[in-house]
């Protein structure tokens, strides 16, 4: 024990020394801020891996504006207050040019004022509920009209007429379902039920009884984390597995499906902007590169891809602007086309990403068979016109 501890300290000292020596004009520091511990670590560690992989690739290819990128990795510890604290620390102490990170809406909301005060820029990689628009955040994850509404449109086109909404009780499911309900009413379709379970909730007996009574055509599932396992287990025990009742999930990607046990969720649907199974050469290379680093069985998911593309989008914007200055970078990022494993994408003036949406069905290995893709790139809309009429991004057009 003792020798290894001493060894670790010596090693850390050497690295610290190497960093301080290299911290000169030929490097630029960026922050990587995800939860490396706590409940969210299972999902966020992989996003950190993807962000770091992009940084390493860029460094190997010569860096940004001739400077090597130095990643300062911080742990948000699944706690919004710590996210805010670490964001300040990155901006003030480490003098980073920009920060990549965040997952939960709570973590983003906690960091937002920090970035607005400091005039710095956060690249946020996860789908979210919209209804927010800050000039200091680049939102590459899906807006509601790029994930929830495409799923809704797909279900409608499949002839589904009654929808049952099940979600964890927090801002994303509540807002997402508000939007779905507005569209159900507009289209004259039936809301078969709407149920919320506390985050981490494990008892679904009443929810399942109501689903059985309502006999919906499809369930829209915005449950988060472990609750999904309880939900699918108890549905199966009640004789209503995914093969009998169709379930469309919004928080289950490849990683979660494989962690839960793919047999439990086999046959259920999900909508994302990226699936590991997207058929393109660029995607195959990306998946291969990640697996070389993190194991042949590693799952590659939508938020990971968005974390990865954020780094490349930042690099492209810095090079287009010829500067690391926040205002110059965000101005250059808008409309700039970036090549990614899911094809070329660009940010709209509201600083959210234009992207396609896909509906997939989970197979026995926890991978998605892609059933449907949106015909074209979908323009991001932070404020659904039916749900939040008249609201727009304040800064666009200024």
């Amino acid at each position: 024990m003792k020798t290894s501890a001493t060894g670790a300290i010596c090693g850390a000292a050497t690295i610290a020394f190497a960093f301080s020596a290299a911290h000169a004009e030929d490097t630029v520091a960026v922050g990587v801020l995800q939860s490396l511990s706590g409940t969210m670590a299972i999902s966020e560690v992989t996003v950190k891996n993807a962000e770091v992989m992009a940084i390493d690739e860029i460094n190997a290819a010569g860096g940004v504006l001739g400077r090597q990128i130095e990643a300062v990795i911080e742990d948000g510890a699944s706690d919004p207050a710590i996210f805010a604290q670490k964001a300040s620390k990155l901006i003030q102490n480490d003098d980073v040019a920009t920060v990549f990170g965040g997952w939960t809406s709570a973590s983003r909301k906690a960091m937002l004022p920090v970035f607005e005060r400091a005039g710095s820029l956060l690249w946020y990689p996860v789908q979210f509920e919209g209804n927010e628009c800050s000039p200091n955040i680049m939102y590459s994850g899906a807006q509601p009209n790029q994930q929830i509404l495409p799923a809704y449109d797909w279900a409608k086109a499949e002839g589904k007429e009654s929808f049952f909404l099940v979600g964890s009780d927090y801002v994303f499911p509540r807002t997402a379902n508000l939007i779905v309900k507005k569209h159900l009413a507009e289209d004259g379709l039936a809301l078969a039920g709407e149920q919320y379970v506390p985050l981490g909730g494990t008892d679904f007996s009443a929810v399942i009884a109501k689903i059985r009574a309502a006999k919906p055509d499809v369930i829209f599932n915005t449950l988060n984390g472990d609750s999904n396992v309880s939900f699918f287990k108890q549905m199966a025990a009640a004789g209503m597995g995914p093969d009998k009742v169709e379930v469309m999930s919004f928080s289950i990607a490849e990683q979660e499906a494989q962690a839960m046990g793919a047999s439990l969720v086999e046959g259920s649907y999900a909508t994302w902007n990226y699936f590991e199974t997207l058929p393109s050469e660029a995607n195959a290379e990306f998946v291969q590169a990640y697996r070389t680093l993190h194991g042949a069985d590693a799952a590659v998911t939508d938020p990971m891809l968005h974390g990865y593309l954020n780094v490349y989008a930042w690099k492209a914007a810095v090079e287009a602007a010829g500067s690391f200055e926040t205002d110059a970078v965000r101005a250059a990022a808008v409309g700039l086309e970036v090549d990614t494993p899911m094809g070329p994408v660009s940010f709209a003036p509201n600083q959210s990403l234009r992207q396609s949406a896909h509906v997939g069905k989970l197979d026995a290995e926890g991978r998605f068979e892609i059933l449907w893709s949106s015909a074209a790139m979908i323009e991001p809309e932070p404020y659904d016109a039916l749900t939040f009429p008249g609201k727009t991004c304040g800064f666009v057009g200024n």
Partner: protein
Amino acid sequence: MLDATLFAGQVFNGFSVASLFVLAALGLALSFGLMRVINMAHGEMLMLGGYLAYLTYLIVPGPMAILVAMPVAFLGAALVGGLMEVTVIRRLSSRPLDTLLATWGVSLILQQAARSAFGPIGVGVTAPDWLNTGFAIGSLYFPSTRIFILAVAVAVLAGLGLLIARTRLGLLVRAVNQDRMMAAASGINTRRVDLAVFCLGTGIAGLAGVVLSLLGPVTPTVGQSYIVPAFLVVVMGGLGSMIGTTAAAIILGLVSALSQIFLDVSMSQVLMLVFVIVFLQFRPQGVVATRSRALEG
């Protein structure tokens, strides 16, 4: 508006929830009733039972694994409970607040140990096929897992009742429960009785962990989601009474399930808390008042 099928189904679900509450709360009630120890690590005994079930499934797969898992989890959790009693609780027996903090510390240690050993992601226990069915009466559906859990709860209650009423150990427990000093004076080794009861209580929590694994994932924090309702049941039941605990579990199970006909799960939990608070205003001694010197200051 009130659908008879849904109502009948929820009555069944109420008993199903109550059976989980009973299994989770019995151990707490036992150790509080006898020793006035509030065991904050009780939820971790559930977790331990769940992980032991998972390990048993790995070693003896097959349809009968769950029947092997139950004694394994009972003994495993009882053993850890016994260790805890001997090393921590016994040494702090006259200082209730210190036991509260110390057992909370044990709870954190056990959670972190599970996280290190099995990872932060939950492990899954797949119910055997004979439990993965159910039967329908009219439009009512009864999943076998829920019936199995009810049966386990009834069996545990019956077994415990017999143990307390009919065995020599039960006699000793009742004696210590009524008056610890007199029991000790008449030659009963109260420490050994404490140890036995504590092991029994944690063992039942281990059993609860096995049946929980049929309904949800086993995670390092699984015990936390059941510990609060378990405390509610114990407080409402009258601190330490077995009959009170059972009655309170059934009342709370039905309140929770029936209110969910009208409310969603979040709101029904609020309602359940409000119900307990109001109930205790009118009947602070709980469903069944326990007369015991152990509970008198």
